[in-house]
């Protein structure tokens, strides 16, 4: 379990990294926290001429508020997001979900940019960015472009990133009055990738759900927006029966994978249970089983 030979560069400026990417394209690989990449390298599943280590590019490590947008630099560690008062205040769903990412030592290295670029269908961050309708900023030597989360994720481990591009920033709309959030997941052990996870935003106005955003991980080839559930919920008065119907609708609409940890049927069943639990909690109908 040692990687195949590769060359290594660790630029400390974004422009240098983008130059290298422009030159090497798909012969290069970006190293962020290394928590997904290094295991793959050690299994020799990944081969490339050049490893571009971006960990010295401190300009990509930040969390800030800019009007109605929360900006997170791609190199920000999961742990820094977890501990950030800004995130807790303005993106409580992110704060809640990130605690489910792996274990503390992994969170102190792993980055949100790495997680989104890797696009593991069981990862929490892609589902959350999708639920919040976030925007990702991709940059190459020739310029930057903004891609909505709905367009960024393109299936199993694949994204809109081009070989010469780096994900540099994640933009999330800040939480508005009336919006309430909840995230829950089921994994076989604490810290594992989710078998199924569900994140939700429910906007309650005058006792009705004016807007619902549900997204899940673990039930498709990438993060999945649960539009069937959202449609059922919007403009309705929240009740337990309503969330039960939304859960059934969400479960009927997904096409989960079967793997050694769970079959499709079990995932569908979990999804229903979680949509109900998360929805009820977000709508303030229960404290849910907030087990830690």
């Amino acid at each position, binding site marked *: *379990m*040692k*990687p*195949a*030979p590769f060359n290594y560069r660790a630029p400390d400026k974004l422009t240098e990294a983008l130059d290298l990417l422009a030159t090497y394209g798909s012969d290069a690989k970006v190293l962020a926290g290394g928590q997904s990449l290094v*295991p793959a390298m050690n*299994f*020799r599943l990944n081969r490339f001429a050049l490893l571009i280590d971006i960990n010295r590019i401190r300009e990509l490590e930040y969390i800030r508020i800019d009007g109605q947008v929360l900006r997170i630099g791609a190199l920000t560690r999961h742990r820094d997001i977890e501990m950030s008062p800004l995130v807790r205040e303005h993106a409580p769903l992110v704060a809640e979900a990130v605690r489910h990412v792996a274990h503390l030592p992994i969170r102190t290295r792993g980055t949100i940019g790495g997680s989104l670029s890797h696009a593991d269908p069981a990862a929490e961050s892609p589902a959350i960015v999708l639920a919040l309708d976030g925007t990702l900023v991709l940059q190459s030597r020739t310029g930057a472009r903004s891609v909505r989360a709905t367009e960024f994720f393109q299936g199993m481990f694949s994204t809109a990133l081009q070989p010469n591009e780096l994900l540099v920033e994640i933009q999330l709309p800040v939480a508005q009055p009336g919006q309430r959030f909840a995230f829950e997941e*089921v994994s*076989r*052990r*604490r*810290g*594992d*990738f989710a078998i199924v996870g569900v994140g939700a935003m429910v906007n309650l106005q005058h006792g009705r759900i004016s807007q619902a955003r549900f997204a899940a991980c673990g039930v498709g080839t990438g993060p999945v927006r649960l539009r069937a559930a959202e449609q059922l919920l919007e403009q309705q008065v929240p009740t337990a029966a309503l969330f039960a119907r939304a859960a059934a609708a969400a479960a009927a609409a997904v096409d989960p994978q079967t793997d*050694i*940890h*769970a*079959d499709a*049927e*079990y995932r569908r*069943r*979990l999804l229903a*249970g*979680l949509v109900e*639990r998360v929805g009820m909690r977000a709508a303030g109908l229960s404290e849910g*089983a907030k087990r830690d």
Partner: protein
Amino acid sequence: MQNRPPKSWRDAVEHEINIPDQPILATDKVRYVGEALAVIVAESRYLAEDAAELIEVDLEPLPAVATVDMALATDAPKVHDDLKSNVVARLRIRKGDAAGILASGVRSIRHRFTNHRYLAMPIECRGVVSQYDSRSDSLTIWSSTQVVHWVRREVAVRLGLPESRVRCIAPDVGGGFGVKGHVYPEDVLIPYLARRLGRPVKWIEDRHEHLLNSTHARDDRHDVEVAFDDKGRILAIRDNFVKDSGAYTPVGIGAPSNTIAHLLGPYDIPHLEAAATVVVTNKTPNAPYRGSGRPEGVFVMERLMDLVARELGMDPVELRLRNMIPPERMPYSVGIPYRDGVPVVYDSGDFPAALHEAINALGGLEAIRAEQRAAWAEGRFLGLGVASFVEGTGAGPFEGATVRIDPSGEIFVATGACAQGQGHETIFAQVAADEWGVTPDQVTVSIADTGSIALGYGTIASRSAVNSSSAIRKASAVLRQKVFAIAGHLLECAIEDLELRDGRVSVKGVPTMSISLAEIAQAARPGWDHRRPPGMSGGLEVTEYFEPPTVTWAYATHAALVEIDRITGAPIIRKYVVVHDSGVLINPKLADGQVLGGVCQGIGGGLLEEVIYDQDGQLLTGSLMDYLVPTASDMPPIEVIHRETPSPLNELGVKGLGEGGAIAPPVAIANAVCDALRPAGYEIFATPIRRSEILKAIDKILG
């Protein structure tokens, strides 16, 4: 060769054994994914892996034998061409007439039970380092083995060296749990390379190699019939089981014969017929792992207990009590032979008391049942699971000890046991300290080094506390005669008037007349001006071998209170209790550690850990992302209660306790889950316990 059953066993058990040798490297045929077929030596592991990619192997795919059914099919491809079939061993043991009882029209049920494949997974993988000394044509091997003397013998034989030119040492090697309990190809290959290249050679297994290539365990399937009467007395059991041994069977029939010997457990059951068929498949070899065959048999027996109770509408606890051997009947002769050829006789203990104690530690049966009914009424699912078992421990054939007192007065002890974190150094020092009236820090213990003691057997089968401790005691007794003779000579008094106290030999009742062990050791020194009695040889060193008459019988009851998470189907263990009797505890804290560690591994085996192969014999669980080992946060509150019934089979009264913890958790939890889901009639017949199946049962109840 270490594991050939003795003649008395061969005479007592119907058997047929054709176990093929495992080659050091595959030559004409590769029999499982992971079997080594080439070896590369390089300056670093990175280079070696680069070089390995350059090897082109011309392999012709053969049909895979990936399951026992595939192995037993009439037209099955043969895993070993020179064998008649894929069956490498058959064993059959009978007592009474199980077939007759089952045919006699009494009540009976039959079920198929499957114990899945899982494995030991020590945190530290294996490793072998070897250095050759060309001047003396001798090899030193540092191996992460539990059996240094066996490694030495195997290397000596294979490389054509006398044993005296091979030394094997197992330094602090991390966990063993059985997976390091036999000789692996690498144990021979690395010394061979060191000798051939004239340079030290090191191989440290990585986790992927470990999952592919270190032995797996469990993996059998039982077809069982049980006969019983209306009062809940179990009358007869017939069990035919097939064990998937993988491509080779490095420890022979050890595990399946354990399964048979432990099947009847703490119960008085008059008729038994048990037959094992061991088959080879295209999988990683299967060898003992903590419990070795016992968890499999205990899963079958303890599930049957609950199933019979269900048939009769009786509480499973009550059914067990009706069948348990009462303490008055100890020692109890079971009527079948053990693996050492000696008839199984449970030597001591009180099985029903252990069961009562476990239930009481969970609040008592009535309170548990009341809570369960209340939970059901609220749509929650709470269950009690119990598993009682017995455990033959401290197996022979022998272990040795050298005890020496050097002229500084320090006591040196060497024994053939190999420690993997159990605390051997501590308990052997305690035993020696008691023998010599000194404190443990005045004892130096050398273990796991063939350079320290000529013959040894190693640490497997919960045997070291029994065998090494007894050998230390035996050698100490012999040496003490010499020490007393010298002391008597120096103090000018009779030996009968002497006693050992605080590191000194003194005249009874006259503490001022005494002499230290150091002075005695100096007097014993060979050479001019020694002060030994006339005719006595020099030095203070004795080696003795303890050969136990047979195994000591430990026993336990495990009990679990489990609640099911309705959304996920996960069994949440609210409390887990172990009442365990392994005789006299040499060190209670270490005993707790052994039991707790075993329980953790058993919980992992029951709920999380699973080696999975596809139909082509491809391993699907080749990393720790796929093979799930329990972590601290998966552990429930566990209470360990010790009973201490001294074993009459050794002077210390100890029984083994290394494995017991791991034996019962899968079935105790399974029983609790089924008990919780009784309204659905849910029964578990296979491990691991699957949340998806539990959810289906819940759906059935909730409609």
